[in-house]
């Protein structure tokens, strides 16, 4: 009897320490992400010594910059690191973070492990927008920005808006209807993409490459465009992390516990779609990240969204940075689409985790 009480007390002690444990996890993972980003700067067709890479980064740091001797760094090397590799790696991190965050949100709202950031038609809307931009002429720019990301972004938001309004009954949005109308709209839009591919002629390969997803053409301005959107979106989502926990008890119970379910759901859907749309607009359709990262993280770290969300975001970012580095490296100088790498590596790893911790998969 005494031992039972003891262990119960231990449980509570660990609960008190939970907040600090969570902080530690986030810090460790953030450090890992930073290291991954720095290491991946070394990956690419041009052979640049790692010391040079560190030198170039250090030079850009406040205070540290003055102490570094950068006389032996060539202009070309600096351009490759800062103007070509840096934006695509940061874009990879941002997109990975956004997709993982949206995945957590959608799996939480739909209480379904099959949900991913694309269930509400974000991907197919973006695909229509991007294909349209490509078919109409890629050279066309609006205010100095290529039309492809702009139309992709607009297309995905329009698709989600349509899906949302199809499922809306008064002020309520039942999740099952949402899921189904997402599927319906996606099928419809995919057909339009198919039509655009047929009439694309010689531009077909551009559409196909966009659909596979990648960071080959990412520039600094793309990164700066999506950065505020993704930061804002993930922050809003994090505000509602505890509400997401309670939604797991069912919407009615959540209501009974004081969660304004319809409002929370609406906000989470809007900001989940926003970060996904922002991500997709620069990267094209990268599958799997939003599906498996939340999953894997949940298996390892538990279902509490207050830690699951930040962890998934960092792990998603790290994962996509690594996948992109591998995509550049594996059959260099040819680049593989990063979506191929995410699927090739993430799939087996998820299967491994599922087999190892079968019981935790229970939803």
């Amino acid at each position, binding site marked *: 009897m005494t031992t*039972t009480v003891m*262990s*119960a007390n231990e*449980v*509570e002690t660990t*609960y*008190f320490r*939970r*907040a600090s444990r969570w902080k530690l996890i986030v810090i460790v993972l953030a450090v890992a992400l930073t290291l991954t980003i720095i290491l991946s700067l070394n990956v690419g067709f041009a052979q640049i010594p790692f010391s040079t890479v560190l030198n170039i980064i250090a030079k850009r740091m406040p205070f540290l910059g003055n102490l570094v001797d950068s006389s032996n760094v060539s202009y070309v090397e600096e351009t490759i690191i800062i103007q070509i590799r840096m934006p695509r790696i940061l874009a990879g991190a941002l997109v990975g973070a956004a997709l993982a965050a949206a995945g957590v949100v959608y799996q939480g709202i739909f*209480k*379904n492990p099959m949900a991913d950031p694309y269930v509400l038609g974000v991907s197919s809307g973006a695909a229509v927008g991007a294909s349209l931009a490509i078919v109409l002429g890629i050279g066309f720019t609006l205010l100095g920005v290529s039309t492809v990301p702009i139309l992709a972004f607009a297309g995905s938001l329009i698709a989600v808006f349509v899906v949302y309004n199809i499922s809306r009954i008064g002020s309520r949005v039942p999740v099952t209807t949402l899921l189904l109308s997402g599927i319906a709209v996606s099928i419809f839009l995919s057909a339009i993409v198919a039509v655009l591919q047929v009439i694309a002629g010689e531009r077909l390969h551009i559409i196909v490459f966009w659909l596979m997803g990648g960071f080959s053409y990412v520039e600094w301005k793309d990164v700066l465009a999506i950065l505020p959107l993704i930061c804002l979106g993930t922050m809003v989502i994090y*505000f509602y992390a*505890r509400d997401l*926990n*309670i939604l*797991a*008890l*069912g919407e*009615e*119970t959540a*209501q*009974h*516990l*004081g*969660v*304004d379910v319809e409002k929370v759901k609406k906000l989470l859907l809007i900001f989940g779609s926003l970060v996904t749309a922002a991500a997709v607009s620069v990267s094209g359709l990268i599958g799997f990240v939003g599906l498996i990262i939340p999953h894997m993280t*949940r298996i390892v770290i*538990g*279902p*509490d969204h207050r830690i699951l969300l930040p962890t998934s975001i960092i792990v998603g970012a790290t994962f996509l940075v690594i996948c992109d580095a591998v995509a550049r490296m594996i059959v260099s100088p040819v680049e593989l689409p990063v979506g191929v790498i995410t699927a090739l590596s993430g799939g087996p790893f998820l299967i491994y985790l599922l087999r190892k911790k079968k*019981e*935790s998969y*229970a*939803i």
Partner: protein
Amino acid sequence: MVILTVDGIDCYYGSVKVLENVCFSVKERDFVGVLGPNGSGKTTLLRGISRALKPHRGVILLNDVDIYALKSVEVAKQMAVVPQDNVIAFNFTALDIVLMGRHPHLSRFQMESEKDIAIAKRAMELTNTRHLAERPINELSGGERQRVIIARALAQEPTVLLLDEPTVHLDINNQLEIMDLLKELCIKKGLIVLAVFHDFDLATRYCDSAMLLNNGRIFSIGPIETVLTGENIKKVFQVNMIVKRHPVTNMLYIVPLSTSRSKTKPSKDIIVHIICGGGSGVPIMKTLLEQGYVVTTGVLNTLDTDYDAACTLGIPVVNEAPFSPITKESHKANLAMIDEASAIIIGNVPFGYGNLKNLEAAKVALERGKMIIIVEETSVHRRDFTNGRAQNLLRELKSKGAIAVESCREALSKLQAL
């Protein structure tokens, strides 16, 4: 003083009206059972009160404030709900789940404090789930899970507790434990407990008052013993019930007999008279009624089990004062009843000088050409307390054509020959 008033609410699912003009008021320390057939609106009523289904008409006042005018978090600080189905996505631990009950008391970025954990701990102690704290909720048994859910509701520190069939997954021991706990909380903490039950016995054991719903309306409301009467239950559930006080516990108890629908089966118009006593007649009466026979019985002493059963089943009976031998008047009345019958069944009843006349009545019946069936589950000499007179009479009956059978079922098959 906490008062919950439901004032004339109508609730709809789409265009279907599920509740109509429901009015009642409960105050702290009230333990109210909500009863009624499936689809009578019990769960809907709880949903209406818990702010999950806004009534089209009428208001729900908690301490004179319309709960639909409050924010859901304000309501959640005062009202907790234990729902019927508890599907929980993702594998939270039991303690996680109970701590979720603290949500309405926490601000957006606040982590659970020491106080919140102490409250959760106490709630888990009360529901006997503290040892489950670290276990994943989806790996608990139905009963453990239910107790965790109740602990979560208690962690909300509510003044009103709504429960939808709280004991439905629990074994008898857990049922009583949970009900005892709810009762105790109700009295000690002055909670209002409003619980949907399908189990009449539990309801009568614990509830002070009850409401019986039927087709979305309150059929009856008030102290439990005035609501759960055989009459009311028969009307609402279309089931015949015996509602009685238990001689040992002095609690109301309810025994369903048969659905009144099956009773409306076309009558065979065959009258069977039963000679019984001491409980030997109950199975016969019940079986024959179910088969659509018209049943009469006599002579029985008042207070005899068979007499009670006959009254409950609405069977005409010739009765005699308690512990008295059969008088001439009763015997005559019995003979008159036997005259109407086509067959007589003699149950496996002990015979003494008091009820020997019933056998003589059977003899008369046989002479008048009635079919006589004697059920002999135990040997006659063991239940003959008349120095062999009963045995002689029975032997005489058999020799004159009465049919002896060994069971009630056999008797029925003989009757079917009629």
